[in-house]
């Protein structure tokens, strides 16, 4: 079963044992995590990752390929089974990164209601693996994609391209 990757910006808000754990049941996500689940047209952007994670590095490189700086990337990985079992639907929607093939691994969770989104937040919170990559790892992954010809260096933001050359 594949995995789904959701990029987040506030990893610490997803941490178990944080301030919210003093007053919320352990399986319930704090409301603040909804900042990281911003929808558009009731769709939530996620990436499909192979069950052996063989495309994970490439997807991460693709995600950061449009960035102006690579300080950190936080994301959550969750087994697709949890999405299916909870009746949430996904639809393929091409990503918007500099890696054209990686864009085909982008999907949206669709037709979300507000309560669906809260349920999804709880699923991610209870079952997801929270991961942080810092700049050196992101640079390595991006370098791999550039060297493999998946991403054209000339298309990177100058600030990132400059770091890649160091």
């Amino acid at each position: 079963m594949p995995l789904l990757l959701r990029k987040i910006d506030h990893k610490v808000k997803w941490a178990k044992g944080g301030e919210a754990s003093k007053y919320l049941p352990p399986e319930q996500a704090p409301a603040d995590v909804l900042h990281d689940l911003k929808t558009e047209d009731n769709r939530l952007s996620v990436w499909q990752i192979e069950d052996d994670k063989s495309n994970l590095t490439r997807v991460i490189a693709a995600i950061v390929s449009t960035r102006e700086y690579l300080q950190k990337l936080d994301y959550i990985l969750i087994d697709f089974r949890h999405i299916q079992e909870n009746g949430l639907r996904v639809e393929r929607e091409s990503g918007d990164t500099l890696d054209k093939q990686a864009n085909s691994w982008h999907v949206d969770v669709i037709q979300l209601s507000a309560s669906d989104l809260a349920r999804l937040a709880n699923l991610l919170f209870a079952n997801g693996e929270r991961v942080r990559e810092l700049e050196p790892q992101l640079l390595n992954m991006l370098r791999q994609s550039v060297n493999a010809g998946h991403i054209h260096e000339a298309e990177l933001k100058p600030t990132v391209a400059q770091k890649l050359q160091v």
Partner: protein
Amino acid sequence: MSTEARIIVTGGNDVSAWIPLTLSGEPRLTLPGVTQRGQNAITMGGGTSIEFTSGWTSLPLQVGGVSPEFAQHVSLAPANTCGPQTFSTNLSATTTFLVDTPNVVSWAVQTAVSNAATSSGRERVTNVELRVSSLFDTADLVEFEDGFENEFTHRVKQLVKTNGVSAVAEIAAVLFRSQIHSELVAQILLCLGRIEDDATYYARSAVLQCGLSSLSADVRDAAAVGIASMSDLNAIPSLERAVAREIIKDLKVDMQKALLELKRTA
């Protein structure tokens, strides 16, 4: 005649404090080997009159917690109110305040000397204060996203690059007031961590190290990431202490990762 300076006292296990300092009379600030990295003490002459004003709530307790030497030699007002407080004291004798973050002291003293030495120093600082104040006025309108600068972070960067350490000090003074939302503090710390500017390197690192002691997990997290971005090896002890006292497991792991990156740089 009084000369205003801003001094950071950093130390202890729990808190750090920014203390705007007014020295009445001729300031007698001496610091043996001030330019030497790793220097960790500040000495003030006996009889120096000091006035403290702080935006911190319950400042005296926090200062007392910061540095035992500080509490021993300075009489502090009781901490029975919240919000900005002002109080004065006289040093009874030449006093050395120990600070456990290298470079912080030399930076603070350099700032003090710089402000005292130039007649326009106060004017310059006021100008920076105004710019920083106006900067924070616009912060509520901004949306932050990892990897992308916005108008606010562009302005922070420009302010620091144009005004140097004065701007960093002023931003920090506003930053650690309790009224500032922790998300905004975190974003500014991340921004300070990625500015490429040698002139403010140690000042920015000092502010990030202060952030490690914040009561807010968001701020502690951002401070650790910012420190990793700066690759300041002098910050390793601060980060090690932050890892040791962190109670949120996920955050502790992330701090350890930042620490590992920093040590790998070494």
